[in-house]
């Protein structure tokens, strides 16, 4: 390829990529600026929304977020629910994934797919009857209702993803451990789990963020401020009357988005590999 074509194609790659980066990220650029903007600056439609006007940046809204709203409570709730749900998910999905990957034979494929299909039953369909179930169990308005219900979407997804990871571990190694003197469970714990650790970690991260993002159930089941998670608390509570605390809102959004995006970026290659193992092969 001659130089002109090479640089031409380089330029087009950079061009395309910059356009997309801009498209995806410009709300966040705006958010990054806005979280430090003074209110007189913000509420003037003539001012440049992407730069600081008279008076420069301020930390007051970020402080407000932490000191005068329940943001920290929301964050704690989100982390708590996330952690417990991840624990429950692993406890349910790992054995199930192993059973389907190794022990179920021809039933395994079919059952695995059925489990995946469960994932496609959306919260928007189930939230009404589930709200009744939650109320009957006395968990209305408690973050425990979320702990109870969130595994309904993490477990199917994670079982399916883990199945793919587990299948990629050679059977030989487990069978060798059986021969070497361990029971099936012992063999798995000592040989399969250490090797599946990267996959398990990926699953942990993605299911944690799934719980972080969830909106429908959180909106439907929890109305008490102190029990709300970030994804519902921030949009509904950072408001006085009709006016939203925009700067604080953006601060909250950035505080959640950036670390999660960083972690996703780190684990992206693993996730893609897991998808290729699980999704592309059915």
């Amino acid at each position, binding site marked *: 390829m001659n130089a002109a074509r090479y640089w031409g194609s380089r330029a087009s*790659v950079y061009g395309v*990529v910059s356009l*997309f*980066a801009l*498209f*995806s990220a410009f*709300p*966040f650029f*705006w958010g990054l600026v806005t979280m430090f903007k003074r209110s007189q600056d913000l509420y003037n*439609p003539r001012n440049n929304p*992407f730069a600081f006007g008279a008076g420069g940046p301020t930390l007051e809204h970020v402080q407000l977020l932490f000191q005068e709203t329940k943001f920290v409570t929301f964050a704690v709730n989100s982390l708590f629910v996330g952690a417990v749900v991840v624990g429950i998910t692993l406890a*349910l*999905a790992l*054995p199930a994934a192993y059973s*389907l990957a190794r*022990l*179920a034979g021809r039933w395994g494929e079919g059952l695995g797919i059925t489990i995946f*299909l*469960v994932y*496609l*039953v*959306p*919260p*928007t*369909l*189930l*939230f*009404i*009857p589930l709200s*009744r*179930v939650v109320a009957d169990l006395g968990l209305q308005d408690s973050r425990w209702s979320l702990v*109870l219900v969130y*595994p309904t979407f993490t*477990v199917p997804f994670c079982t399916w993803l883990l199945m793919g990871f587990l299948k990629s571990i050679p059977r030989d190694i487990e069978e060798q451990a059986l021969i070497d003197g361990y029971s099936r469970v012992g063999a798995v714990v000592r040989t399969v789990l250490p090797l599946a650790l990267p996959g398990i970690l990926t699953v942990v991260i993605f299911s944690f963020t799934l719980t*972080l*993002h969830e*909106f*429908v159930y959180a909106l*439907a089941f929890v109305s008490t401020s102190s029990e709300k998670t*970030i*994804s519902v608390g*921030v*949009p509904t509570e950072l408001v006085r009357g009709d006016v939203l605390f925009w700067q604080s809102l953006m601060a*909250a*959004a950035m505080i*959640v*988005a*950036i670390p*999660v*995006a960083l972690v996703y*970026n780190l684990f*992206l290659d693993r996730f*893609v*590999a897991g*998808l*290729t193992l699980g*999704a*592309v*092969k*059915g």
Partner: protein
Amino acid sequence: MAGQVTRAGPLTLGDRIALQFRYLLDREALLGPLLLLPAVVYIVALVGFPFVLALAYSLSDVTAGDQSLDFVGFRNFTDIVHDPIFRRALRNTFVFAFASQALVLVLANVLALALMAEFRGKWLVRLLVLLPWATPAALSTIAWLWLLDSVFSPIDWLFRQAHLLGPGTPLGPNNNMYWLGRPELAMLSVIVVHAWRILPLATVIVLAGLTSIPQDIKDAAAVDGAGFWRLFLQIITPLMFPVVAVAVLFGFIFTFTDLAVVYVLTRGGPINNTQVLGSWAFIKGIQGGDLAQGAAVALFLFPVLLGVAVLMLRLARRAEVT
């Protein structure tokens, strides 16, 4: 030491029975279902049972006040079908899903192709592209609430700077677009926000498919004299079809069943013009207290989802590239 071998003598019947119990958990036929049981029980209890309950609700007159389940036949369904808002919501649900996924289809493919190349700053680009997916739907949608605001929209500001907006410009005499105030623009806004949110995930899936195409095939094509476009259209696209279709179907499901974007961005407005099944079910069922009608509305989601699920299965089976 070599050659010394331990050997068990013949066993009594009692020994044999004891042995069978000791090794009970080794029997695959037992262990398999046992390991599967907790997950299955949980899912049946918290997905299967509520689903059946939703069906029951839709055929009853239950409300938040009256907890009893009295069978009323298909009355709920006939009621909502005659409701113009519901019909609007049903239409919107499809329109939003199809339109946003069409957009995503094109964009995700272009982006995934670009991301196949190696270039400086790739890590940063990936980070920026991932941001919409990394943010909780409600939070990112709230940002869009301001970005599309009728007075303060930064997009309007940009348009004004570029002399596209304002008196004497192509986009009209007003200084603002009223993205969320005008019905058609509101619909467009919802579609674009959906596409913006789904793009990262779709790109990742397409990327997974692209990277799983063996290099041999690309090499063979190059040797056969295929230029970029021929390679793309005649070789990559057919191979990628199942994967891309899976990505689009995923996105379709997310947008089809969405509640968050519509609820936060427009609450279904202006005047219920952007209502979708999810948001309408929420407003009727939880906010309005009419659980039966809410369930009925939500159930309209199911047949389409089932069809999509079947489609996805067929495609996933075809998607084995190697």
